């Protein structure tokens, strides 16, 4: 049997939805099996870290790495897989830009641990907190150590390609798989290193079927507070802060099509340095007021501006985390 190229997929700080998205490619997954030798995919098959360590460097052709870097285990595996892989893809929003787990960067890690083990809904009468090492008769046990902040994969290792989305749309996953298979067969060439793949050229508005006019709004509202919402008119124009104008296309405007505002999971458009800054200026540009008082009043309609503009992107943004997350334990 011809040695098939090796394939790996790993799941760091993420929810697992990316794995589902891969499986959700239906029969395409069979192409993966047909064309690749799956060597490491903890969700789908049993494999040990030491098996990976034993592999030769660059022996894995393609690794889809999903999840951000939250602890030292994530970091170790990222570095390991980088060493062993020819092509390392930051797969999904978490690996690309931190995603929802990245919102943890709004708080110091100590606070997060404390909250997790000491809220009213937590039954923890003895005030027990996790510790990274513990001695048991059999010896010393270790659990991974949390890092101060969540980091996208790129901030830890060199990444070849980025595939955003929470999760990446399955049709995009399928297209990428097809591409790689074509490359293996010599029928296509890889895009330049650093490219964002499995996405559109523009932003969500490009794919959004709603009618767009020159927009000015006198107030911002939540989608559930506009009744009835016009299903054919641009959502932002109706006063709902929609992240679509700044969010990379590729999802076929899934949320706006379903009647909800875009929340930005596909991340910034090509060449954008800071996603949040693009949304700040987008929202600010539609405010129909000139006095500070009136502008502030309109801005009150966005109750959590930081969360609004950095929902998926905080860890990958210019500031990366809040001041307290940097400074406090």
């Amino acid at each position, binding site marked *: 049997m011809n040695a098939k190229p090796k394939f790996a997929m790993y799941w760091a700080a993420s929810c697992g939805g990316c794995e589902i998205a891969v499986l959700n490619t239906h029969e395409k997954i069979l192409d993966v099996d047909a064309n690749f030798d799956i060597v490491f995919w903890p969700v789908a098959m049993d494999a040990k870290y030491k098996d990976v360590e034993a592999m030769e460097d660059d022996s894995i052709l393609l690794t889809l790495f999903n999840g951000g870097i939250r602890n030292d285990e994530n970091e170790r595996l990222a570095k390991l897989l980088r060493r062993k892989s020819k092509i390392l893809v930051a797969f999904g929003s978490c690996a690309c830009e931190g995603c929802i787990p990245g919102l943890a960067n709004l708080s110091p890690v100590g606070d997060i641990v404390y909250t997790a083990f000491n809220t009213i809904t937590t039954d923890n009468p003895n005030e027990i907190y996790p510790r990274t090492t513990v001695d048991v008769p059999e010896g010393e046990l270790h659990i991974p150590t949390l890092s101060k902040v969540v980091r996208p994969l790129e901030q830890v290792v060199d990444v070849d390609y980025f595939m955003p989305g929470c999760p990446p749309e399955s049709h995009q996953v399928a297209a990428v798989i097809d591409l790689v298979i074509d490359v293996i067969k010599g029928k296509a060439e890889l895009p330049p290193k650093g490219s964002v793949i499995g996405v559109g*050229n*523009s*932003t*969500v*508005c*490009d794919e959004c079927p709603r009618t*767009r*006019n*020159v*927009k*000015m709004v006198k107030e911002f509202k939540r989608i559930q507070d506009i009744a009835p919402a016009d299903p054919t008119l*641009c959502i*932002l124009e109706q006063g709902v802060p929609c992240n*679509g*104008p*700044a969010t990379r*296309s590729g999802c076929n405007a899934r949320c706006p099509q379903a009647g909800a505002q875009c929340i930005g999971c596909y991340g*910034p*458009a*090509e*060449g*954008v*340095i800071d996603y949040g800054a*693009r*949304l700040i*200026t*987008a929202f*600010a*540009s*539609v405010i129909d007021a000139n006095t500070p008082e009136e502008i502030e009043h309109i801005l009150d309609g966005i109750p959590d501006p930081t969360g609004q503009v950095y929902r998926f992107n905080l860890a990958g943004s210019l500031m990366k985390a809040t001041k307290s997350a940097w400074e406090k334990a």
Partner: protein
Amino acid sequence: MTERIGVYVCHCGTNIAGTVDVVDVANWAAEKLKHQGVVIAREYKFMCSSLGQELIEKDIKELGLTRVVVAACSPHLHEKTFRTAAKNAGLNPYLVELASIREQVSWVHSDKTIGTAKSKAVVSGAVSRVIENAALEEIKVPINPNTLVVGGGIAGIQSALEIANAGFHVYLVEREPSIGGHMSQFDKTFPTLDCSACILTPRMVEVGTHPNITLLTWSEVTNVAGYVGNFHVTINKKARFVNEELCTGCGICQEKCPKKVIDDVYEAGLGYRKAVYTPFAQAVPNFPVMDKENCTYFIKGTCKACEKFCPTNAIDFTQQDQLINIDVGNIILATGYDLFDARRVSSYGYGRLPNVFTSIEFERLSNAAGPTSGNIVLRDGKTTPKSVGIIHCVGSRDKNFNNYCSVICCMQGLKFAHLVHERTGATVYNFYIDMRTAYKAYDEFYQRVLEEGTLFVRGKVAEVTNAARKESEKGKLIIQVEDTLAGKQRRIPVDMVILSSGLQPRADSKEVGKMFGISCSMDGWFTERHPKLDPVATMTEGIFIVGCAQGPKDIPSSVAQGAAAAARVLDKILQKEVMLEPIKASINKETCSGCRICNGLCPFNAIAYIEDDKISDINPALCQGCGTCVAACPAGAISGTGFSDAQIMAQIDGLLLRNLITA
């Protein structure tokens, strides 16, 4: 590293070198910024001198420099100088960056250590930035030789005649039925006391008959599109209900019209006109207009007296407003001013006390063609005043109203004093804060009025009242004022008070400014390109401002500006094409999502939405390069030349010295 950068640090004599160790800065740049591509760093006594420029030109040629940074004075002073030097040496001028270490460093700091350190940061920022600079070419645009002049007052008339006499076509648009503006309401003009009509009317007639002038009165500009050289203007020619082809201007319709209306415009509310009227006898054009709001036929459906009596059947009740489209290369705005509404100063009693008059009312009173045939009388229409108080600075130099000086009021007040004295022999008081009689022959006029015996009281009038405190005040208007030179409060009873009201921007100046794409000051006057060196041009290429639209001024200044703008327009017409600064925004068609957020941001209407492609596009000729859309595009699809994201990001890093190799 592909760029070869030269850094030139200027001493500016001791202006910079006194507070900045320029040698240290140059050496530092040569060493620490070498990895950025700096191949040479020099300092020189006066970089802007021809020797300094030659130094740079020589290096460009001999060392093959691809970028130049000059650390010297503010770019507003010498950016052009060094760009030209680069151009002479064959380097694209936009690959030169100025780092200001004089206005922004040596002149504002005194510590040499700090000055030197800051200069290094500023140079470092400029070096990082210049790497990202792109070679740019100026944009050439052809000029349509036709010109639009908006406003038919004396300033607009002057502009129109100058251009028309030079052989080019002018469209002159006027909102009122006749040209002439405020000047046509005046009796005499200061300081020479020329009869206003005598000097203005010939000009008006010349406009009316000039082959190169298309005169559109009773018309307003409703839309302006395009850009310098290629403006497309829409004008609404309001229905006159008088056929201009047939009308001979005989005036029978006015005579026969039974409807009298208070004339708020020309007669300033002090006289009457008919519902069909020409505002005054010398009106140009001489065709009357029908005032639809007041015409009995339009109100009740009967009358038609004018139609019955018109000998040429020129009355046409079916006439409609008409939209006219014209193409012009340049536009001159001469939209004039509004008079300050003196009712706002309630302590002066205008509108409450009958014998308080505004300046424009007095102009009509004293005008031989006015409602009293030039007799200066009280509001009862017959009594000649025995004493008259003239109050200066009404609504001007007052934070409660307008904070600026209206320029003309002092001279106007003196002119009134003279006219009252001459026509009535009354005792005349002038109340002033400061007597401002600058310009030729103005102070001489003040001397003349002093000689005539006018009584001057230095003090801003506190109030005008009819509440008498003693017998001698009964039936009079009492002017209460502190005579600041005597240091006493005085109560001066007079028969008539004239308020020398200030000038205000037109009520619609902000909207008009927006339509033409030019800005207004906080007060509402149109903003000139430079207050001293470019007073009639605006920030929008091809749009000029003259007369009181730009700020309060008298007739001589308005005429001078009218002529100045005409010269600027003629210059453009004769050049046949104009070069535009290449600092422009553009949209990447691939990445634009057509979200249309930028569409509402451009006050110059440079951004258009292309329905077919569902994307937006920028017209570079209309773009003024402010960069607002660049900063606003949520997709990052708009980029701007001259001030690109890359340039600014690099400059931030450079200024923060993050571009240094810290070995």
